[in-house]
């Protein structure tokens, strides 16, 4: 349970970090380490070098921008969860973050790290996908924006190049009158979910994103579906998988149950907040 040897770099700027990454094809970025260190300790990963970005100033910013909120690569889950700006601009982010691990893990783990780690059982990749957010990355050829729809290419695989660093993530604001909700079922609070669902309702449009159902975060469009048929309509677009945590049949049942629930509570959220505004 000890990591294999690796070279360690602790750059003081993004430019320096990018340069180091470009020189070592087998390097990995170290952010909060809450996913990477367990992989190293279990020797499921053995990179030649770790590029620790924790000493780069300014990366922990959380800023409200036109149309949404931008979260820096070193903003810890705990800081994002506690941010009144984030809660006001996009309430789905804290709703989902409350289910990410335990407080102690959230004190160190970063929200952007979780997006890049691309675990299909993680909450935040689904939230980013459902909201149509994006990640800004810096690399040898400059900065580019990767929309969530192009970020997730496979299990634990994002479309980031090995010499790129994610500098921030952008979560679009909740439109006036729209509603959101998040629910998941886990064996214990704080565990990875057996199935989780996030809903976004905006007028006639109904979309639900799922975690732990497929091997990438999956969003389905349920606009125009009768309330009673939501679960089956979602399942028609999903292929729940078996693993050691749950059977495909049990996952399908959770999708049936959770889909109706999240859509209903997203509508309720919209109604309550519309009244509050009046």
């Amino acid at each position, binding site marked *: 349970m000890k990591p294999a*040897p690796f070279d*360690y770099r*602790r750059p003081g700027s993004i430019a320096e970090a990018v340069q180091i990454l470009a020189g070592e094809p087998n390097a990995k970025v170290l952010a909060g380490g809450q996913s990477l260190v367990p992989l190293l300790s279990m020797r499921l990963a053995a990179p030649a070098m770790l590029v620790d970005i924790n000493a780069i100033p300014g990366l922990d910013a959380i800023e409200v921008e036109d149309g949404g909120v931008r979260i820096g690569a070193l903003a810890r889950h*705990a800081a994002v969860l506690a941010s009144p700006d984030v809660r006001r601009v996009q309430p789905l982010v804290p709703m989902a973050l409350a289910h990410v691990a335990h407080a102690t893990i959230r*004190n160190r783990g970063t929200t952007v790290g979780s997006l890049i780690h691309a675990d299909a059982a993680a909450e935040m990749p689904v939230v980013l996908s459902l909201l149509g957010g994006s990640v800004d990355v810096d690399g040898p050829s400059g900065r580019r924006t990767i929309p969530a729809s192009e970020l997730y290419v496979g299990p634990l695989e994002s479309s980031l190049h090995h010499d790129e660093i994610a500098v921030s993530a952008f979560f679009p604001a909740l439109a006036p009158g729209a509603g959101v909700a998040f629910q998941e079922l886990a064996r214990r609070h704080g565990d990875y979910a057996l199935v989780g669902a996030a809903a976004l309702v905006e007028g006639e449009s109904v979309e639900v994103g799922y975690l732990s159902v497929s091997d990438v975060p999956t969003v389905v469009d349920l606009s125009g579906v009768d309330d009673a048929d939501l679960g089956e309509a979602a399942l028609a677009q999903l292929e729940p998988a078996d693993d050691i945590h749950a059977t495909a049949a049990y996952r399908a049942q959770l999708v049936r149950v959770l889909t109706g629930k999240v859509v209903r509570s997203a509508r309720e959220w919209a109604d309550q907040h519309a009244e509050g505004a009046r």
Partner: protein
Amino acid sequence: MSEELHDVRLTVNGASHEIRVPARRLLSDALRHDLRLTGTHVGCEHGVCGACTVLVDGEPMRACLMFAVSAVDHEITTVEGLTHADGSLSPVQQAFAECHGLQCGFCTPGFLTTITAGLRDNPQPTHEEARDMIAGNLCRCTGYQNIVKAVERAAELGSEARTSTTGGAS
């Protein structure tokens, strides 16, 4: 193959220490093996059990999920640092003793650090909040009832201590 060593200055319980370690030295191992602070326990080494929880700039974090080389800019508090300077127990430690909050004691250091920070942020937790405070720590022998009682007792002891130092004024 000789592994590159790094000079690392760690600030632990207010004292500064110089150690020379490979980059892969986990903070938990640096504390235990290099600094001989064996109060921090190591159970799972992948972030699940909470036995290794220490305070990093006052916030609970897993020492097994940090490298010593990354801990340089931080103030670390281990269970050894919770005891008062005169050797007397802190309110959380006192409460564990009074409420039978431990049997073998393996998990205890992680609970003590976590609860110390938890009660600092929320000195009067409800029963639910007390349970939630320890939800990320595993105990395999005491069971959680007495540990939750200890959280609530520590909150009482803390508020008694605050009232006595402020001369009863509230």
